[in-house]
């Protein structure tokens, strides 16, 4: 079996001696078509694209992503949209990995198997489920693996050493390290040095898996963390969408510029 698109991407960025840039946007923000346009455009610079499927009761998201999610739902987002957006995106960007991210209730209502079938059909590469932690997620993670979908485990600063080891064991090609105790989009409240120190401890346990860092990463902070395998930027992008709407400017152009600048900082 050939390595997953996600793995291939990391092999490539490592060769280029830089971290993978991973973006997060919300499907349907601020409309179905617009979010597809944004995705297409930012993928010129992003190595992996995360696409959130919005939930109206998110317990781990900060203000920026909440705003994006509510906007998408208000504008009529339906869960099928996330699959159709992915499908259309993949038709033109075949080799760009797409990771869906969201809360478990949406999958639960859709049915785990139905959800994974539709992920498979629309060529989703990975899944992040915010509120389905280890070890409760083992069964679902195995189902994902059978469909060649990466289930991305999360590790946080509160995760114990023993737990980190177990989580690594059950992870696939990519692990998401949460930089600090925060919801998404919080201000980085500890030093990059400290984050990289903790990150290093995880990496020491797993040379082969790719560990990315997310939460609190902006144009200001991204450079200081470029030693990581990958860096996720979400809230900073959602914020740009909000600002562009407020200023009645071109959302696609503005957001693409943000992503371009982020990429330049870690080249």
């Amino acid at each position: 079996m050939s390595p997953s698109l996600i793995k291939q991407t990391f092999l490539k960025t490592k060769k280029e001696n830089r971290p993978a840039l991973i973006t997060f946007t919300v499907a349907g923000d601020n409309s179905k078509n617009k979010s597809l346009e944004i995705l297409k455009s930012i993928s010129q610079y992003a190595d992996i694209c995360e696409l959130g499927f919005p939930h109206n009761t998110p317990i781990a998201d900060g203000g920026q992503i909440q705003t994006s999610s509510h906007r998408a739902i208000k504008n009529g987002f339906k869960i099928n949209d996330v699959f159709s957006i992915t499908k259309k995106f993949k038709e033109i960007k075949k080799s760009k990995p797409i990771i869906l991210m969201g809360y478990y209730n949406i999958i639960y209502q859709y049915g785990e198997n139905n959800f994974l079938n539709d992920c498979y059909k629309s060529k989703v590469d990975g899944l992040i489920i915010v509120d389905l932690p280890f070890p409760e997620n083992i069964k679902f993670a195995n189902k994902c693996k059978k469909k060649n979908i990466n289930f991305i485990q999360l590790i946080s600063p509160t995760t114990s050493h023993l737990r980190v080891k177990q989580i690594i064991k059950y992870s696939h090609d990519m692990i998401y390290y949460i930089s600090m105790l925060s919801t998404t989009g919080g201000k980085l409240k500890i030093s990059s040095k400290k984050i990289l120190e903790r990150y290093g401890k995880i990496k020491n346990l797993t040379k082969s898996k790719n560990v990315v860092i997310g939460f609190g990463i902006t144009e200001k902070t991204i450079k200081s963390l470029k030693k990581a395998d990958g860096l996720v930027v979400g809230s900073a992008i959602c914020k740009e969408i909000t600002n562009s709407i407020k200023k009645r400017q071109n959302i696609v152009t503005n957001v693409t510029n943000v992503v371009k600048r982020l990429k330049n900082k870690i080249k």
Partner: protein
Amino acid sequence: MKLKKGTPLIDQHDKYGFWGGKFGGSFVPETLKKPIEDLTIKFQKLRKDKKFIKKKDFYFKNYIGSPTSFIKLENLSNNLGGAQVWAKVVSEANGGAHKIYNATVHALICKAMGKKYIIGDTGAGYAGKMLSMAAKKFGLKCKIFMGAKDIKRQKPNCDAIRKNGAEIVPVYSGSQTLVDAVSECMRYWVSNCDNVHMAVGSTVGPNIFVKICGWSTAQISKELKIQLTDQFHTIPKKIKLINCVGGGSSAYGFWSEFIDYDKKQIELIGVEAGGPKNSKLHAAPLSKNAKIGILHGAASYVCQNKEGQISETESISAGLDYPGVSPLHCFLKDTKRARYTFATDEDALHAYEMVTKYEKLNPSLEPCHAFAEAIKIAPKLSKDTIIIVNSCGDAKKDRDILKKRLGKY
């Protein structure tokens, strides 16, 4: 799915925290796994620790004022005809509602864990008021998360919270009610779990919070069991325990000691908020057959749309205005041990008028939902049937709503 006898309901879950294999659990972000595990271990120790139990009992007696009284509503019974209607006047507890039990226990746990900050959510404002009282009593700094809509409609409790030195954090997201307050409170905990203790205001949320709250409010039925025996020299043959259900903390506390009894002897009736008579919205996931979903870290029956987005709810009673419900009640529903129904806003208001007309009792809009059911069924029942309503809150907080809707308070 079966109930076990001789084991408290709060302990009848599997290793992943599920009651009946599907209700409850801990659907939390990774960051909260460790603080929840710490809290779980601590609580397991404390509830077996004689010194801690002694301390809890001391504060329940001397600070909360246990036991609350158990009285016959003579005039109301005579007027309705049929069954005898009694009340367990839990609103006599310090602060005016059952929320003080859970708040006091959380404050004691917070102290035992060496944390100085405590946070909590509130709908009607009682959970928040009690937590702010307990925080003041035990020297803790306190933040209360409350929906902006609730801040407006439950002003007397907000004044009390502030007077106790706690900060109210208004929540403007979503419907600006309890559901959003709980979300925001959890988000704050995610960011500050290293030195902040979180109290969930009802028997909802991740497994451990259901357990702590249920363990605390169980005091109500422990008292009632003794009071029943004192009054009747035995547990009577036909009892109906009627309680309102929002999250379900007072109902669980009112019932916990009686779950093992045959339902022909002791029937458990939960009354949810049916919302305004002419509205499609309600807060009655159990009695209006909502589907199972995941909300605030637990699986339960939840008012939601097909896609899993949580629905807006509507009720005159802020304390019941919540789309989810305790996994304990889902379990009691599916095992058919308890029966769940609803009362509309209008039913509750009518019950308030009836009860206050005949009795020296001033139940808040939440227990008025339970009184509405008592008023409905009492005339059809025999004289030897004992209906007991948990009058779990005082109507002072509803002053503005009652004035507006009934023209008097």
